[in-house]
């Protein structure tokens, strides 16, 4: 089977022609893209930059390239031309997609390898238009006399075109030109010609809860219940992250397309409303079921007792005693039932709308967040069996030790509000 697959590939990249009583064998060896506006892409594991010296090679190497729309791609290529008596001159040209061609040039030889000099395409990419060329195919040809051309091979690489020049990598935010950010930004909004269209198309990619890394791995929101990943780089590297990372990823895809606004990164917390049980500092994201309350404290009548190994949990919360229980509710990215007991949450703001990329949910107003997202409010504190009046360990009495951490909760959404704080990312 393998031999049958390889045959047509060989025919594409190599050709033999008889001319002037000689037999020539030509092989396309490599293709490199360049251009003043070409963006240097980073490896998704943040180990460095993707090789920008080779974008296609006959050993199977392919590397993607990225440009802003309206840029002019330049390319150089090498051909191996084997014959008994090598020609003095060899002309090479290339035909790319959508009429983006590379005019014939005299190639210089070193040994039997001829180099097509760095040459700009005969036209720039369309301006103000996002494009994703999964297979940017150039059909290369050669000629001995600049008149009659013969196939020399085909190069295929991925090319990303952003709507506007990407915003500069910067600062401490961790915003970098990761391959995956370009992949999502350009693939999802392919064809967009306006900011609004670009934003809408990219957002649509987040709403199906399946956002893929460039290598096809689905990235998750709390695949690990206590994910350590809070930066864009760690989300992409480990394909899992907290809400911070998802807000950053969404904003990064817009920045890659040259779109950024100040005050676009919102952290929400409970507003520390006072109750008879202490201030409310946490919230429970849908869905949580509220069972029979113990009414240890009237304003927050439900109590859970954290297990000692609470933070070792991988996929479900550990409680030694629970009156409030986590249920499958709002789906997160690649996660049917992600973490849902928080002190804070991070949401992107774009054009005064609230994009919760972790869940793929868009809120038109700030107030919608509370009613759309949460089941109740909560707080944690240290107590013991005597403190809450519950025989947690079931030994028939109330022990004054050991202390444990408890969660107090209420399903009364009017008991508190979200408190926003906004930064620029």
């Amino acid at each position: 089977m393998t031999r049958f697959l390889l045959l047509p590939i060989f025919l594409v990249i190599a050709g033999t022609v008889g001319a002037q009583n000689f037999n020539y064998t030509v092989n396309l060896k490599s293709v490199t893209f360049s251009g003043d506006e070409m963006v240097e892409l980073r490896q998704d594991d943040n180990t460095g930059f993707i090789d920008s010296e080779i974008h296609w090679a006959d050993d199977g190497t392919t590397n993607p390239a990225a440009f802003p729309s309206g840029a002019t791609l330049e390319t150089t290529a090498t051909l191996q031309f084997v014959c008994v008596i090598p020609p003095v001159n060899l002309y090479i040209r290339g035909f790319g997609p959508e009429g983006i061609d590379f005019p014939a040039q005299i190639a210089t030889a070193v040994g039997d390898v001829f180099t097509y000099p760095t040459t700009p395409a005969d036209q720039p990419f369309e301006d103000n238009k996002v494009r994703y060329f999964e297979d940017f195919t150039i059909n290369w040809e050669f000629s001995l006399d600049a008149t009659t051309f013969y196939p020399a091979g085909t190069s295929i690489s991925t090319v990303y075109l952003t709507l506007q020049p990407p915003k500069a990598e910067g600062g401490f935010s961790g915003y970098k030109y990761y391959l995956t950010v370009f992949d999502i930004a350009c693939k999802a909004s392919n064809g967009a010609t306006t900011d609004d269209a670009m934003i809408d198309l990219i957002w649509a990619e987040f709403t199906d809860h399946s956002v893929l890394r460039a290598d096809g791995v689905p990235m998750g929101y709390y695949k690990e219940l206590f994910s350590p990943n809070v930066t864009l780089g760690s989300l992409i590297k480990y394909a899992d992250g907290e809400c911070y990372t998802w807000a950053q990823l969404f904003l990064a895809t817009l920045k890659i397309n040259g779109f950024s606004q100040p005050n676009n990164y919102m952290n929400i917390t409970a507003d520390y409303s006072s109750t008879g049980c202490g201030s409310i500092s946490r919230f429970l994201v849908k869905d949580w079921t509220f069972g029979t309350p113990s009414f240890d404290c009237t304003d927050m009548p439900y109590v859970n007792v954290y297990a000692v190994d609470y933070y070792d949990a991988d996929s479900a919360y550990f409680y030694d005693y629970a009156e409030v229980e986590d249920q499958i509710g709002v789906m997160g990215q690649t996660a049917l039932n992600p973490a849902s007991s928080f002190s804070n949450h991070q949401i992107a703001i774009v054009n005064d709308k609230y994009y919760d990329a972790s869940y793929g949910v868009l809120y038109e107003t700030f107030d919608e967040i509370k009613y759309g997202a949460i089941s109740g409010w909560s707080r944690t504190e240290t107590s013991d069996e005597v403190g809450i009046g519950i025989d947690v360990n079931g030994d028939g009495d109330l022990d004054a030790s050991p202390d444990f951490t408890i969660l107090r909760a209420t399903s009364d959404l009017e008991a508190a509000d979200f408190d926003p704080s906004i930064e620029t990312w």
Partner: protein
Amino acid sequence: MKKLSLSLLFFFSLLTAFTQGKFDRKIIIADSNFYAVEIINQIGVLWIGNIAQPMDSAVRYIIPAGTKRRAVNYQPFAWDINNNSIFAINFTENAQNDRATSLKQIPLNNLEKYTSINNPAVYLNKAAIENGSIQNYPFIDTYKNNIYMDDLFFDLVTKGDSIYQFIAINNNLVVWLWDGRNWSKSTTFPMKVRSFFSVYAMDNDVYIIESNGVRSVYRNQPIVMASKYFDMYNSVMINNRDNNSIQFVNANAFVNTKLPLTQIIAQNKIN
């Protein structure tokens, strides 16, 4: 009241591509030992070593607290050493963080030795949950009264049993004092801050030094002192409690920690 002149050159706010180098904000010297904090994956790592020995020989401890790297403005870790404890404000990004417990007081002998932070989640969760016995009401109040936080800067300093938190946001400075029982809040002092500042205690006073080098003493209000202007942004403050001095060292000097701190200071001090 003499108006506090804390306005900073605009370009400081654009220097986000720079960092302070290996250590955040300052190094404390006491009893011929130094205390420095390196931030790794948001988590603080406290170096404790002898000032005459290579810095690399320091023992390192993980602090269950740290600071994030913001997009717009650099906010170095706010920390101090007093009474064999480290005091710090946890400013990490973690969904379990609670502002009420963000002020940490941790005995040094409770710190775990650093080998590597191969599971940051453990320490980020510790930073969110543990050691927050003094409610950080100043943070709650600040966030409750402000929405836009790009220009939030803060630092803390301990003096005796008191904790001072200096919080600047949106052209206002508020000083909070914890007297061991309660927080008290100063009046609001108008000021412009577009980059971080540091505070330190010396000779029974508390001082503020802005990122352009302007110093003020805080005596119920900030009073500007004669100042040498320099770029604190790219330097590390040396708070030497053995000789009661404040110096600044080029932050890049700490790229090479094979040298003793005394030698690094001698070769790289700014003023």
